[in-house]
């Protein structure tokens, strides 16, 4: 469903992605690992169309469409969702207004009627339970004054409401305590359909214990330098990245 070919991208004139090739089929979970600054978040941002990043070469097709030709909101409507590494606070915009605008924009795109007020509130309530988000948080402005962990939980809450088919989780586990990690990861698994795919960016195996990847990739210097099965994540957890670097150099 997602096919990335020879993707190059720059930010502030600096090339960060130097030829990414990655194919993700429906239902597959791909873990993306790599050292700080390797370009993992850059790849996420490029995929969702962040204006600060410029694609200089390569292509991305999503469900047969040229993803790079779509606006960020169209990409979202097509089913792409990014759980941000650093979710933004939006004071003065309530979670309800935010989610209503998002959901109804998507429904309009899909040719559906907007959801009426009571069905919408019911949906908000149901989905809140999946990630066990405090109702007090759901009534506040978007992420305003949320703790780091609460923000991550709120990302998955939004995902639950929008029901994307391709999820990018950018270090969703960071900032979560052990219990929260389990709740959020299990929430994600409950929300998954057999068709839902994901790119799971993480530094730790603990998230992958819950969200089991089919493939693990290592990003280094703007390229995917190594791919493998779930055992690769375990190996990285024990040995770090140096052995992979040495492997490439030799």
């Amino acid at each position, binding site marked *: 469903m997602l096919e990335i070919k020879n993707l190059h991208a720059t930010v502030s004139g600096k090339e960060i992605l130097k030829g990414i090739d990655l194919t993700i089929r429906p239902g597959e979970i791909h873990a993306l690992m790599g050292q700080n600054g390797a370009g993992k978040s850059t790849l996420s941002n490029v995929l*969702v169309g962040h204006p600060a990043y410029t694609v200089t070469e390569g292509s991305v097709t999503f469900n047969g469409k040229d993803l790079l030709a779509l606006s*960020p909101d169209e990409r*979202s409507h097509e089913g792409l969702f990014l759980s941000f590494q650093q979710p933004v606070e*939006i*004071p*003065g*915009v309530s979670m309800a207004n935010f989610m209503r605008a*998002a959901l109804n*924009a998507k429904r309009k795109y899909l040719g559906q009627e907007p959801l009426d007020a009571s069905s919408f509130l019911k949906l908000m309530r149901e989905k809140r339970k999946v990630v066990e988000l405090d109702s007090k948080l759901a009534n506040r402005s978007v992420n305003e004054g949320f703790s780091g962990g609460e923000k991550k939980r709120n990302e998955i809450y939004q995902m639950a409401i*929008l029901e994307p088919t391709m999820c990018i989780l950018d270090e969703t586990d960071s900032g979560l305590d052990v219990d929260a990690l389990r709740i959020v990861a299990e929430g994600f698994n409950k929300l998954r359909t057999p068709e839902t795919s994901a790119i799971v960016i993480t530094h730790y195996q603990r998230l992958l214990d819950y969200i089991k990847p089919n493939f693990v990739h290592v990003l280094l210097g703007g390229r995917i330098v190594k791919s493998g099965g779930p055992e690769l994540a375990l190996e990285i957890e024990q040995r770090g990245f140096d052995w992979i670097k040495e492997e490439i150099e030799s």
Partner: protein
Amino acid sequence: MKDISQYIELFRTERALLDSHSQALLNAHRDEAAEAFMRLGFPSRKVERYRYTDVAEAFAPNYGLKLDTPPAAMNLPEVAATRYGTLANVQNDAITALNTMLVQDVIVIYVPADQRREHPVQLTNTLRSSVPLMQNRRLLIIAEAGAEVQVLQTDKAEGGQDFLTTQVTEIFVGEGAHVEFYDMEDSHSRCHRFHQVYAQVAAGGHLTHTTFTLASGLSRNQADVRLVGQGADALLLGCAITDGQQHVDNNTLIEHIAPGCTSRELYKYVVDQQSSGAFAGRVLVRQEAEKTDSIERNANLVCTEQARMWTQPMLEIYADDVKCSHGSTVGQLNNDALFYMRQRGISEAEARMLLKQAFASEVLAAIPLEALRQRLHVLVEKRFRNCEDCKLCQKNNR
């Protein structure tokens, strides 16, 4: 003084008609006002309080007066005569002088001691004309000791004609009295309005004064609030939403004269397209005004490269023991927030609208009158949507 000659001429030729259609009280103040107006002329930008608005230009077109409608009541209550013109600064303010010279009618809202109006008094001004029209109006609000009243004034205009309005409002808040005055302008781009508010708050009295400019061409609102009795309290709120070639200038002076008075002031602007906004707020704490507690804030959202905002908070303190703060900010729409919303599927126009609305909502939330607060939320959203939907705006947002 070419600028003012057409108005002096107008006054001379129409004097008899003006007098025959107005109350004696209004007529009695005309000559003094005309003298002051001739002496002052239209304020140039060198006059401190008028530096952000070109007054002469606004008055340049040839406006007609509609003089054939008599006022609703020829007999004004006694109390009006003792207060009319006693706060308004005819000698130093040209707009006030011009208004007093040409004024056609006065609305008097009088609340006797300890009486309470259960429902707000609502004044709706709708401008309608086939030729360029000027109107000069007057409002006098008197709340005696312990009285309570809420006044809501709405300015609207129909048809694409040029309009010029001057208004002088005098508000007397008696001891322990409570007055809320809501001024809302929702007109169109060919309306020019100058509103001078003069208020005085006695001991333990409270005044809320809010100015909302949803739509207009040029608006200049001036508010002078004097806290003259111990423990007097004032809340000044303002919100301006501007686009096109619109210009909104709010100029306030809060004078702490008695000890132990409180003032709170919050003005917010959302300045879009090529429009401009100005806010100058002076808080003056006199020597006797010990234990003054004053917070003044002006925050502005400037949405395009072409939009302009001037902000000038001023704090002048002559007392020793006071708690005062003032500040202003000028910012742009938060790009990270915009992108976050777009990732969730919200269009750029909608995301911008939500952020603007969020910005304005802080002032709305501070409005004491609940029904108005809710209504304004709707009106503000409507206003932003129109703006976003028009072609010009979409082009500018790219």
